[in-house]
């Protein structure tokens, strides 16, 4: 069957097209059009939703809501999203960022999806046409998810608490060897009071480093203070092997980069 494009006005209409089993949702095209170009025959229809509200950013009361069609460039341009800009800038080159969407990034397989690593550390929730769920939960069922994402929402991190690192072999743009995002809060004397840490390329999708989070609680961000967390960060990881890096290499360098992120 030849490939064709369907443009609909609303998410429920798109859901009906997807229900045929032969359609794929079109966001910015970096995943779906690429798949079609590479001869993926599992779909013959691309469906997109023309609703402009999917492309809006709302920042109110310390919370940000990014519509699923919001692009990485739009995030970079937004004056109130400066703290998370490094994660958006980590996606592709400029032309990819023009079209790559927040919604698409949620479905990007390892080694892609660095922005979602940031969202996971930020404790984002995912709004879908079937209800709202925590991003952690969404990622667990991602392969079986058959709804449509409308937006993601998260509390903006307090200034200076969000840390992000993407490690690649080609600078400034390259696929991830790994990425790490963390939101770390400290009290007046520098003791960690809250930590959420997310890792990219340490499984087939972004994962939390819960042991490292626990190890950081009550610690100071000093070489001795972070030592236990640096050991714990590798707990339970199942790194990917791909043309960018081997499982062995990713496992070896994760603690190095995590330590630098904490002490940097």
């Amino acid at each position, binding site marked *: *069957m*030849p*490939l064709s494009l369907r443009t609909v006005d609303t998410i429920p209409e798109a859901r009906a097209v997807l229900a045929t089993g032969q359609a794929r949702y079109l966001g910015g095209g970096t995943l779906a059009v690429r798949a079609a170009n*590479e*001869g993926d*025959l599992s779909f013959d229809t691309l469906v997109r939703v023309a609703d402009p509200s999917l492309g809006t950013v709302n920042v109110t009361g310390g919370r940000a809501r990014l519509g699923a069609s919001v692009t990485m460039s739009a995030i970079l341009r937004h004056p109130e999203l400066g703290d998370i800009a490094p994660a958006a800038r980590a996606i592709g080159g400029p032309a990819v960022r023009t079209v790559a969407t927040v919604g698409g990034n949620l479905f990007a397989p390892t080694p892609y999806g660095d922005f979602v690593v940031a969202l996971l550390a930020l404790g984002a929730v995912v709004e879908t046409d079937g209800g709202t769920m925590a991003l952690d939960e969404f990622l667990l069922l991602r392969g079986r998810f058959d709804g449509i994402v409308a937006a993601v929402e998260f509390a903006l991190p307090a200034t200076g608490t969000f840390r992000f690192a993407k490690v690649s072999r080609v600078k400034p743009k390259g696929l991830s060897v790994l990425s790490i995002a963390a939101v770390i809060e400290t009290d007046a004397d520098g003791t960690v009071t809250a930590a959420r840490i997310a890792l990219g390329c340490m499984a087939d999708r972004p994962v939390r480093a819960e042991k490292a989070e626990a190890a950081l609680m009550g610690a100071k961000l000093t070489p001795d203070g972070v030592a236990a967390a640096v050991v714990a960060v590798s707990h339970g990881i199942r790194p990917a092997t791909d043309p960018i890096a081997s499982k062995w290499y990713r496992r070896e360098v994760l603690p190095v980069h995590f330590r630098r992120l904490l002490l940097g």
Partner: protein
Amino acid sequence: MIRLAKDYFADQRDDDLKQLGQGLQRSDVPGHVAGTTTYFADRTFPRMLYLKMVRSPHHHARIRSIDTSEAERHPGVARVLTHRDIPHNVYTILILIQIGPEDEQVLAADKVRWKGEAVVAVLADSERAANEAAAKVKIDYEILPAVFDIDEALKEGATLVNEYHGNNYYTYDSGSHRKVRFGDVEKGFAESDHILEQTYWSSPIEHAPTETTGCVVVPEGNDRFTCYTNTQAMFFTLDNTSIILQMPGHKLHFVGGTVGGGFGGKVDVTVEPIAILASRLTGRPVSFIYSREEEMQISSPRAAEKIIIKDGITKDGRILARKVTGYTDAGAYSRHSPYGAQKGAAHYPGPYTVPNVWIDTYCVYTNRTPSSAMRGFGVTIADFALEVQMDKLARLIDMDPLEFRFINAYRDGDMKAHRQPTEGAALIECMQEASKTANWPVADRFMRMSSYKAEA
């Protein structure tokens, strides 16, 4: 920065070098920047067919059966080609210079010998239809054991990769390998103060040109065809196509032009014969362009190599004996590798004067992607190994690595291992200039040396 060091050999030429050192605009750059340079694929023709190749998913397998009936019935399909359609299916590109035997199939008939080998070509109105039909081709394989590296392939009783060769190595007129014999290496080793034997390995390297390999063929009537191609080897490709299709060359009009990156990766004859045949059998224009994945996985890479170098040196820095055994991993078929392995034999022992030399180089077959030409193939990896070895030897006797090279550099009049006297070497002078430019000083006596022995 280009700087001419004109004081070297100044007495041997007139100082009339007008072009050297001058920036000269490339003749094709105005078209490149304007976006008007024509590449082979910048052409479209009505009723064009798109060729999709069905490739082996196995490294080594016997083909029990090929069933194309369902693919042929798929909407939009114009023709499906198998080995039965190829006039002269078993070929080898170097046969043009009498380097046989023919050992490779245009489309696999009875066996596949590497993962990615072409088996069935599907032609359809659109790439999508060609892909869909290709998915309907049914090939029944009996998987065979495969060998993936040089050592494994040369073991006694190893699985035979390519029956046309009978052994897992190329048979030269000199036997299982190319040989260079000069002096007496064993005597040289016996007289040496130190002996160092090291093994060097390299992996295949893909050229990854931004423009993928391909061609567009248009039938011109009277059984003549125009083939727009990005081959780097125009007449070589034409002559091989003529053999494969059993068509006289005057029926084949090849149009080349600007190649979007080649680096030696576009000298194998892999797209033109099948695309011309498809055009001939359908009467329609045919486009066969590798996908990016095919370019990375299917096109020939630089060969993997294994190089063993054994050197004997004196404590004052003279190399007395050098023994080299080089292995080139050709993959499943010859392509340019018998020549690459031979180039290695011609290149060792490097630009050094060594009185006792023994060189063996082998072209080895494995069930890997056939390797072929890439920038200095047969020489580049050899130089890597040789120069790493030179550094290790210098360290062994606690000598400056550049001074160690001055001591052993070949100079005019020296007899090379291949029994060619050295002429116009200029290596001493290059190293003197490099020493100054890199601010890596060497002892005065080396700076006073010359490539001419008489002055040394």
